[in-house]
């Protein structure tokens, strides 16, 4: 089975500091990591491969430095890595990103199964998986908490729904998005890291994908952030008098 796993580079921390004087935002840019949900997806893919054979390809769109993270996925068990990296990809929102990833899946000759993390820790949008499935015109199962079985033509998995959980069976190819604790990703071994150092990470530019220039990067992104501002923090605690305590707490409870 050919499995493609989409991996995104995210900052290691979502911590935002405010400059005490200017009140401008300060972010720590020093460390980037693979989105933890995607690391789980890679592990899930490797487990499927260990049972059924095939290859696991880690696919990412990002700046050239993302290559390092893709190597790390190889150390964790992926067979191949592909990095879509080109100036014209920059500024992509989820629509442009999913379009670009869909083009890449087709350029790589398609896949039997495409795994994505349910969402990325920096954006929290959870949109890439279902958008990708729409571009590829294949079924999609989001919020998957367990992969039950796979054969050449189907995958059976359990997903979260608003009312509980559901077991669904979908025809392959399909896109599956997984929760972070679907499985525990293994840590790479020194042997795995050694192997990843010599592995090839295929770099792909926009031209190679045959992508419509108006659908990629900043120009292909309909949404635009116009303002960012820090979340208001919890203020001082409110004191409630003892004689009004029960009524006040009752009110808080009713507001839920």
């Amino acid at each position, binding site marked *: 089975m050919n499995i493609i796993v989409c991996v995104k580079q995210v900052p*290691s*921390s979502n*911590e935002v*500091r405010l*400059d*005490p*004087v200017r009140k401008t935002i*300060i972010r*720590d840019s*020093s*460390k980037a*990591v693979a989105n*933890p949900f995607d690391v789980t997806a890679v592990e899930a893919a490797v487990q499927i491969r260990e049972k059924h054979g095939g290859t696991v390809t880690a696919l990412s769109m990002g700046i050239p430095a993302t290559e390092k993270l893709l190597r*790390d996925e190889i*150390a964790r068990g992926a067979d191949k890595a592909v990095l879509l990296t080109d100036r014209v990809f920059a500024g992509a929102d989820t629509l442009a990103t999913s379009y670009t990833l869909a083009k890449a899946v087709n350029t790589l000759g398609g896949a039997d199964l495409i795994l994505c993390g349910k969402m990325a820790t920096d954006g929290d949008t959870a949109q890439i998986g279902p958008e990708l499935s729409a571009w590829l015109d294949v079924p999609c199962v989001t919020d998957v908490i367990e992969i039950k079985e796979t054969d050449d033509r189907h995958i059976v998995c359990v997903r979260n729904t608003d009312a509980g959980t559901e077991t669904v069976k979908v025809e392959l190819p399909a896109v599956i998005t997984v929760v972070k*604790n679907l499985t*525990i990703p*293994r*840590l*790479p*071994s*020194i*042997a*795995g*890291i*050694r192997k990843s150092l010599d592995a090839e990470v295929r770099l792909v530019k926009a031209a190679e994908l045959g992508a419509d220039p108006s659908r990629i990067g900043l120009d292909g992104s309909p949404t635009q952030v116009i303002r960012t501002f820090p979340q208001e923090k919890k203020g001082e605690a409110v004191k409630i008098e003892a004689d009004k305590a029960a009524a006040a707490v009752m009110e808080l409870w009713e507001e839920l």
Partner: protein
Amino acid sequence: MYDLIQSADKIGAEYLRDESRSTGHAEYAVFAKNEEDVLNALRFANEKDLNVTVQGGRTGLAGAAVPYGGLILNLSQMDRITGMELQDGKYILYAQPGVVLLKLRKMIASRKLDTGLFDESSLGIYNRFFTDKEQFFPTDPTETSATVGGMAACNASGARSYRYGAMRRHVSSVRMFLMDGRCVNVKRGEAFANGLKASLPCTDGSSVDFTLPSYKMPEVKNASGYYAAPDMDLIDLLIGSDGTLGVIVELGLILDPLPEAVWGSACLFEREKDALSFVDKVRGEKNIASLEYFDKGALEILRQQKANGSAFASLPDVPKRIESIVYAELHCRDEEEALGSLLRIGEIAELAGGNEKDTWVARNQSDLDGLMFFRHAVPESVNMNIDKLRKTQPSLTKMGTDMSVPDDKLFDVMEMYRRDIEKTGVRSAIWGHIGNNHLHVNLLPSSTEEAGRVKEMFKEWAKSVTSMGGAVSAEHGVGKLKASFLEIMYGPEHIEEMRSLKRTFDPEWKLGCGNLFSKGEEEKA
């Protein structure tokens, strides 16, 4: 002026014990909020002729914070950062003793400090700190709810002490009240002994004059008894004095820049002897910040906890064939250097009989957190096991050692541990700081009779470890529980030297009674 002093039966029973799980007794308790409160408490104790036991987070494992009658002086509410300085390119944080390590770490990492007590100069330093390279405080005891005051009192260390040394090295100043209310405010590099003769200036112009003990401290990781050496910096005496000389009210904590690359690697071995041989060979690798060990007993308890507890479900599986794990943390200038070290570690593991495939590597924070959770799950599992046993046998306490030996004695000491444990027939789990040949041998006796045998065995070990040139307490401090080991280590004459030193600081013998050594002849009479 004594408003804060309350009767000890008004506060919780937990203030009568600490993590050593031994219990004491007290008549009064004070939760001091500032220096004034501390002074009042000391005055009250002098008036009423009470013993004083200082408490912080009560996370100690040697019972130093367990009250010995009299007054409990709890400093956990003195938990503010009072200022900042920059000395020789290093940031110094001035902290009250009740600052909790976890909170300290969070403050440093997020750079969010409560600057309410800062003066102009501190604020200036803070602004610089805010945008500077990320810093950290290197002393890392496993229990992150420890307070910095407690950590200084027992000269705490942790896994990273392999590289960074114990707490002592990271304290630039100590402000301490003596029992008579005088204050010493010592900065590193300002007050030295002359040979063994010493005079420590007080803020009121007077001084404490004393002679240092004449023993030669072992050249191993050591938190046993007063730090003493000819011509020493006198601040080093106050650190590690186990609450017997004075009450610490402020510490200068030296921060280090956080290394660019912090990686972890666990090497799994099928035989303990391979793990030891790996340790022996890997010591030459310069970037290692910590070198930790887990034996088959520890791994077995972990497997059980993983099987029956959801809290540990996310731990990685350790294959049954694995007998020992050695964890090494790398602190490097950059990732390239870290990779070089990691690959050399792999080679050494294979040379020692391991396999590069049997390794776990963490190269980012979330993987490191995973390995950290694994390391902490070991003591936590054992504690849970003890708690279970104690429900039916409340007299049992956790029986663990804290001894260190020189590098060339690692194989010998391990052989001794294995031989003697087998003789007692008690279930065991060994883990700890193998880089310093400092292993915590923990026994899980299932009866008071077994506990008695273990106690005897520990006494024998104290003698053997001393003769190997080791220390009876490498990091937990001596407290009350290990006072008898200290006598084995140094002998009665040197204990007497320590007693007379204490008397110059605390002539009425009120502070930290029962810690380090008993009062001696008078007490028996």
